[in-house]
């Protein structure tokens, strides 16, 4: 038993296994409250809802792997939603289909600015993305307040966010699966993926190995911006409209999910599978605490305590000079 625990502790899969075990544990606790927590309906719904967070966390993970952090999530999600809906309004029927790529593109542009600030101006990501978040908010307030763009989701967006086109699997889950598969491929099979891990472990060493580390950073932030915006598009489809501050609920859960999935907050280490498990864990935790009507106070305390407890379980960090 202890031997097994020790082996696990040494292997890189401990976070994934632990988070998965914790997820199962949560479901069991939930099922004491209501059988329905184990129903397929409920679980599929959770996966559908987790997809939104999953997309955001995908971008967040890329940035964290680099050793950065992206605090512009809330308003980039809103940018994605508002701009896609607006595009549908501007371009009429053609906008129907252009809307989705346009929204994502807008997020991507903001992501590129993030990347320029972090990679080329070398402003700490924590602070530059904070500034971009404020700018994005400002632009959206001006845009909705000044020009009253359309904010209704197109049918295509609605279908993408709530439909079930394949074997009863929610469409957003399909989207997440596709994005997740691409990310897995990106991280583990491409030169860019290697470069991301390299930069996260030691930007110096990666640079001296002939990697254009600034371009890698720029790309990751661009992808992160696009992921946030894509989540915004899906959310718009889900609630059939885009609205201000729709991304507020995603910033901290995304970071928490990535870290609970075993990605090192200082970068360079982590697997996407871990992030997937982390996202599901966080979504379930939020949902179960909500449905069990735990008062907000208790929810916050439990939420924080779970994060600390799990990280402590993954093993304490190494000491410095040894």
């Amino acid at each position, binding site marked *: 038993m202890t031997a097994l625990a020790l082996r696990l502790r040494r292997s890189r899969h401990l976070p994934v296994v632990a988070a998965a075990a914790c997820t199962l544990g949560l479901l069991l606790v939930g099922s004491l409250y209501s059988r329905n927590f184990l129903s397929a309906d409920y679980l599929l719904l959770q996966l559908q809802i987790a997809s939104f967070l999953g997309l955001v966390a995908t971008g967040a993970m890329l940035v964290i792997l680099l050793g950065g952090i992206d605090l512009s999530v809330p308003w980039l999600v809103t940018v994605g939603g508002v701009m896609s809906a607006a595009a549908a309004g501007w371009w009429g029927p053609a906008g129907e289909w252009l809307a989705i790529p346009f929204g994502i593109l807008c997020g991507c542009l903001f992501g590129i600015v993030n990347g320029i600030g972090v990679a080329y101006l070398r402003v700490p990501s924590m602070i530059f993305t904070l500034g971009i978040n404020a700018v994005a908010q400002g632009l959206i307030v001006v845009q909705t307040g000044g020009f009253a763009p359309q904010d209704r989701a197109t049918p295509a967006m609605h279908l993408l966010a709530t439909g079930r086109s394949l074997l009863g699997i929610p469409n957003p889950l399909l989207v997440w699966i596709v994005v997740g598969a691409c990310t897995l491929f990106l991280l583990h*099979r*491409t*030169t*860019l993926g*290697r*470069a991301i*891990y*390299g930069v996260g*472990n*030691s930007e*110096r*060493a*990666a*640079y*001296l*190995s*002939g*990697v*254009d580390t600034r371009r890698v950073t720029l790309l990751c932030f661009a992808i992160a911006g696009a992921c946030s915006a894509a989540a915004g598009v899906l959310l718009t489809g889900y609630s059939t409209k885009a609205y201000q501050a729709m991304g507020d609920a995603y910033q901290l859960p995304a970071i928490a999910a990535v870290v609970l999935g075993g990605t090192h907050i200082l970068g*360079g*280490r982590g697997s996407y599978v871990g992030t997937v498990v982390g996202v599901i864990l966080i979504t379930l935790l939020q949902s179960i605490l909500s449905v069990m009507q735990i008062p907000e106070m208790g929810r916050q305390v439990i939420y924080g305590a779970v994060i600390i407890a799990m990280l402590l379980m993954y093993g304490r960090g190494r000491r410095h*000079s*040894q």
Partner: protein
Amino acid sequence: MDPVLELVDVSKRYGGVRALDRAQFACAPGRIHALLGENGAGKSTLIKIMAGVVQPDEGRIVLEGTDRRFVHPQHAVAAGIACIFQELSLMPHLSVADNICITNPPTRLGLIDRRAQRRVAEAALARAGAQDIHPLAPVDSLSLSRRQMVEIAKALSRQPKILILDEATSALTAADVQRVYGLLKRLRDEGLAIVYISHRMNEIAELADECSVFRNGRHVATFAAGSQSDAQTVEMMIGRDIAHAFPPKPPPRAAAETAPPALDVRGLSWGGRLHDIRLAVRPGEIVGLGGLDGQGQREFFLALFGVLRGVAGEVRQGGDPVSAGSPRQAKRRGIGIALVPEDRKTDGLMLPMSVRDNLSFAALDRLSRAGVVIASVEAEATAAMVRRLSIKAPELGDPVATLSGGNQQKVVIAKWLMNAPRIVLLSDPTRGIDVGTKQEIYVLLRRLAEEGAAVLLYSTDYAELIGCCDRVAVFFDGRILRWLAGAELTEHALVASALNLTAETLH
């Protein structure tokens, strides 16, 4: 005389490496005790144990007759042991005075008394013979040799009973070296026990009262200075004849002389740090860079590798001017430069990443199509490289941090060989590497050259330069001061030109 500090049967392993193996050591007050041994013999580990930085796996530390355990450097400091580490332990953002008094500042009402601290620092600097250093200067504004003096002053300010210096003179200017000699002799006469590590035999001869030789983590012998000849001492350190450590050099070939140089540097300058460097290397040649540490050798490599901004001068390859604005350009097929940086832990490797990922990292462009790594090609290429350099790694998927230092260094070299470079720059590639591995690396360098690469080797180890290189350019203050080749290439000539003996009076 009774020893003040005694280490009995101490052992220490780092992963697979036995840094110390039941080693013995004792030092007495009023004596300078030299620790001798090859790179990686375990000298630094031994003194780190004395200083409480590293905990021994087994063995006892006896201080003034009582068994002690130093679980934290503070305890050793409190016990009167002051240590100057090989990797300096200064805080670059803090001022000289802050550094000197970091653990035991003079206080008034619980707060640091800055005036008193300044006096302490001034006194310590004066004692170390470095009055020219301003106590309020931030350490990161000082040159390496000045920093080393600060480090010495810092150790002195702790009023130690035992003073340990680990290659404390490696980066000093000649004038400072003399000052430190005088200081150490004075301290010895005041009754301190001094442990002195150096690779320079002349320093040992001048200073030491006693010598202890270590080899591969074992204590080999302790004897009074002067009782053994240099040759005997070296024999003890290396365990065999030095001549066999290096592969034979090929005779100078007439044809090679006329071949166009693989690298032709003309008038390269950078800021105030590199001045008008001219140098040509032909394929098949190993050219050494000598001189004291920090005379611009590293910057020269960085300039060639495209890391520095604002480099003036011309670099030609096969007659065509080339310019690399970044390592990415420098490693391109057309240019084909590889740089093996001296600090493998921060610059050469991504420690938590697997051996395989590290090996293929610099050559991914060759192992991928359209940005997608072809796993089979990668596996084959890395396996071939592991065989070629006989890298000992239990599992290629393990983090490279779990390998021993020598094997890590091999990984750094291998990762660049994957790229089939035409010009290889190596910066102190054998630092902290055991004897056997070193020899393998020398053979490898020679083979690389024979295969047509041009090799530039910077080393702080004179024997290495003499044994390995066809020619050596001695750097001094950002210039090439002298070229040494053939019979001129002796330790004496290297040392003399490294210290720029004719210019010594200027300092």
